[in-house]
């Protein structure tokens, strides 16, 4: 227990560091969560260090190697596993002979940035709007819900095309993508949050918070957000891969990142037909994407669980396995006494 004197100041958004520390303590005991976090960290580091690693391999993401692909056969790389060699660790891209290893790393930068950014925007707006709709009066709820409807029904294509036409060309593309995907994709979150809020707000602890004089906003932040964290985190972990795929489709329509900058989405969409002729070309981005998604999901799940204080101990009847573990613990205890 923290002593009074060294009690740290609370972090914004979280009730107190005490809680944050507890969450961390619970997380620490889950190997899967730690592995996932490590994987994600590694990916981020790899992405950040892309130029360094490229230098190490002696390649860059843009140089063509026409001699490494078989022009007569559609540009499929010579050699096994997509032309992997000492010079090109993961082989080369069909058609151009560009180094895949470096492109994957550079692609990670854009994809992670866009997907994380867009997910963050979606969650942020979604939670705010959902809370406001769930807590606000009828009018606000009606207004926001209708606004959500409008945005759900507005095809991303139309908006993306219009926006790319209006926004100056030197406006950073990743940012534009984050905005487009983020601005049109928050409806899910907001619907979930609104639904949960409607249920939660009838509970006594929300009433108690009202009595404490908290405004709606404060009630939302202190009482509802912690309970909303679970579905929102789950949803965020799901949105992430979807956003990478959305980025791919937007690249398809020419409103994605500008070539020759690589992104996983762009690689995936060009790799579409190659899965028989050059499986490595498809498997590499798909595999990386999958690992990322898996890590996100596992970590998200762990955080979700760790956020629930009841999870640690509660009157709950466990599955068989858990009960065995518990009884073992009990007998151990006895033996030690």
């Amino acid at each position, binding site marked *: *227990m*923290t002593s*009074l*004197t060294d*009690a*740290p*100041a*609370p972090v914004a958004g979280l*009730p*107190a560091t*005490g*809680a944050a520390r*507890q969450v961390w*303590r619970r997380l620490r005991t889950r190997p899967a969560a730690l592995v996932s976090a490590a994987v994600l960290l590694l990916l981020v580091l790899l992405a950040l260090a892309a130029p360094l690693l490229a230098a190490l391999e002696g390649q860059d993401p843009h140089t063509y190697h026409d001699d490494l692909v078989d022009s007569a056969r559609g540009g499929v790389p010579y050699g096994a596993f997509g032309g992997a060699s000492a010079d090109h660790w993961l082989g080369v891209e069909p058609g151009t002979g560009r180094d895949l290893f470096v492109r994957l790393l550079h692609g990670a930068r854009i994809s992670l940035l866009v997907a994380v950014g867009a997910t963050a925007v979606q969650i942020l707006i979604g939670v705010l709007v959902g809370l406001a709709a769930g807590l606000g009066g009828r009018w606000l709820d009606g207004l926001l819900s209708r606004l959500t409807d409008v945005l759900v029904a507005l095809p991303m294509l139309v908006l993306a095309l219009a926006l790319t036409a209006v926004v100056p060309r030197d406006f950073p593309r990743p940012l534009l993508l984050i905005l487009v995907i983020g601005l049109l994709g928050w409806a899910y979150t907001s619907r979930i949050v609104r639904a949960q809020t409607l249920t939660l707000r*009838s*509970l*006594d*602890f929300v*009433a*108690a*918070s*009202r*009595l*404490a*004089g*908290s*405004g*709606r906003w*404060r009630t939302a932040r*202190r*009482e509802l957000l*912690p*309970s909303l*964290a679970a579905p929102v985190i789950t949803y965020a972990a799901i949105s992430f891969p979807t956003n990478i795929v959305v980025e791919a489709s937007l690249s398809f329509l020419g409103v994605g990142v500008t070539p020759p900058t690589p992104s996983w989405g762009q690689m995936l969409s060009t790799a579409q037909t190659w899965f028989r002729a050059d499986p490595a070309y498809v498997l590499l981005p798909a595999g990386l994407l999958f690992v990322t998604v898996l890590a996100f999901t596992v970590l998200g799940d762990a955080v979700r669980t760790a*956020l*629930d*204080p*009841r999870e*640690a*101990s*509660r*009157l*709950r*009847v*466990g*599955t*068989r396995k*858990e*009960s065995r*573990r*518990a*009884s073992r*613990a*009990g007998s151990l*205890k*006895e033996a030690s*006494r």
Partner: protein
Amino acid sequence: MTESPLVEVSDLTVEFEREAGAVRAVDGLSFTLGEGRALALVGESGSGKSTVAGALLGLHRGTGARVGGSVRVGGIDVASAGPAELRRLRGGVAAMVFQDPLSALDPYYAVGDQIAEVYRIHHPVSRRAARARAVEVLGRVGIPDTARRSRSRPHEFSGGMRQRALLAMALACEPKLLVADEPTTALDVTVQAQILDLLHELRRETGTALLLVTHDVGVAAESVDEVLVMRDGREVERGPVAGVLGAPSAPYTRALLSAVPRLDGPVRTPAEMGETLLEAADLRREFGRGKAAVAAVDGVSLTVRSGETLGVVGESGSGKTTLGRMLVRLLDPTGGELRYRGTRIGSLPERELRPYRRELQMVFQDPVASLNPRRSVGESIADPLRVAGERNETRIRGRVRELLDRVGLDPDRYEAYPHEFSGGQRQRVGIARALAAEPRLIVCDEPVSALDVTTQAQVTALLAELQAELGLGLVFIAHDLAVVRQVSDRVAVMRGGRIVEQGTVAEVYGAPQDPYTRQLLAAVPSLDPVRAAERRGRRQELAAA
């Protein structure tokens, strides 16, 4: 060779893992309970009673709690029973009535369906038959208009009704052992008497054994053969009910008994007339629209002055909670007028109500639902302080510790979460939170019904102290007539949404005018088991007549 007893507990130890280290909630407890016998676990809040009850059904399995010793129920070793056996034990052999009635029912299903579902687990009957059984048992626990009410969802029930529904669920299964964890805390005396009589009758008819967990010595006196007094997870005293209650040997038991409020105990010296805080005139509240409308509160007028306690008693479902929630404007009245210090607050929009919010507090009836399971109790209590603009973390913590201490909780449990507390402890957290706002008026909805008498005495004393100190106005909703008498200056008796009688304590208790009030007074349980039996006989005669 004698047949082994129905329940055999030996050297039971339960430890809970907490962030700060393990807590031993039950420590080396042993007891047996024969078929058809009744045992009461009595003890102060947090003494481990509910934990013991849970252990009988193996509810700690798989929760991370460490259970030592052995528990056998109906020949089943609870710790090692296989899943099928465990399922048979639960509900089939032993049925449990949980302490927190609001959260113990699934909010999504009709009450009757939930009972029917559980019934069908242990009795292979048709859905329809199970429904019929549900309606039947609901009737037995005194739910009026059973066929219709069985289709209601839990949130449409009052606290007491929910508790009765849970009891009905247990009864439906016809178990050999009924584990009842505070089954009557939310019930008014008449219904409580009814339930206790019912339990009694059941035991006589079906030979069900009863493990009654209660802090109310009176309830124990009426219903059981043996009493086990617990403190800090250990046995203090055990023996036949007459012996333990009549001639307690342990000093703790004696202290416990002496703290029980009595109808003939001392009353408060009426407070001086302070300023009028709340004034309600013809207050009404309906639920539902059109034909389905129910008037939960039907034209209530009352006033509360500062420094004064208004007791509100009445049967379960009479509208006490609804009234209380309207008084602090958590519910919007559908009619009538409500003034707080002269301002009409009955229909003020939330924004304009804000300045008054902190001055009008409420202690909620259901301590589980009123605490956010995801926030530490310290944070919940600190909320009003933070809202008031306090930024200094050290001061906030200091104040919260002070409040925890005042309501009799360990000040170091700032970081603990609601689920780590016993029922009574949660109730006290609720009181601490209400106090943190430094209110002028508190509506206490059954604030002490979940508390053992000693804690109850502490809490009522605390409220009185604060009242004297700060000139608080209190609305004290309770079904325990003795407590109300002890703490109130004036009393209002509610029935069917109306106040049937209102007056000073002396008037209402001394010369009750309304027949209902008289009925209530007659139903107050007695501490003396012999007298309790006599009175039961008389009640049955009355009912038969």
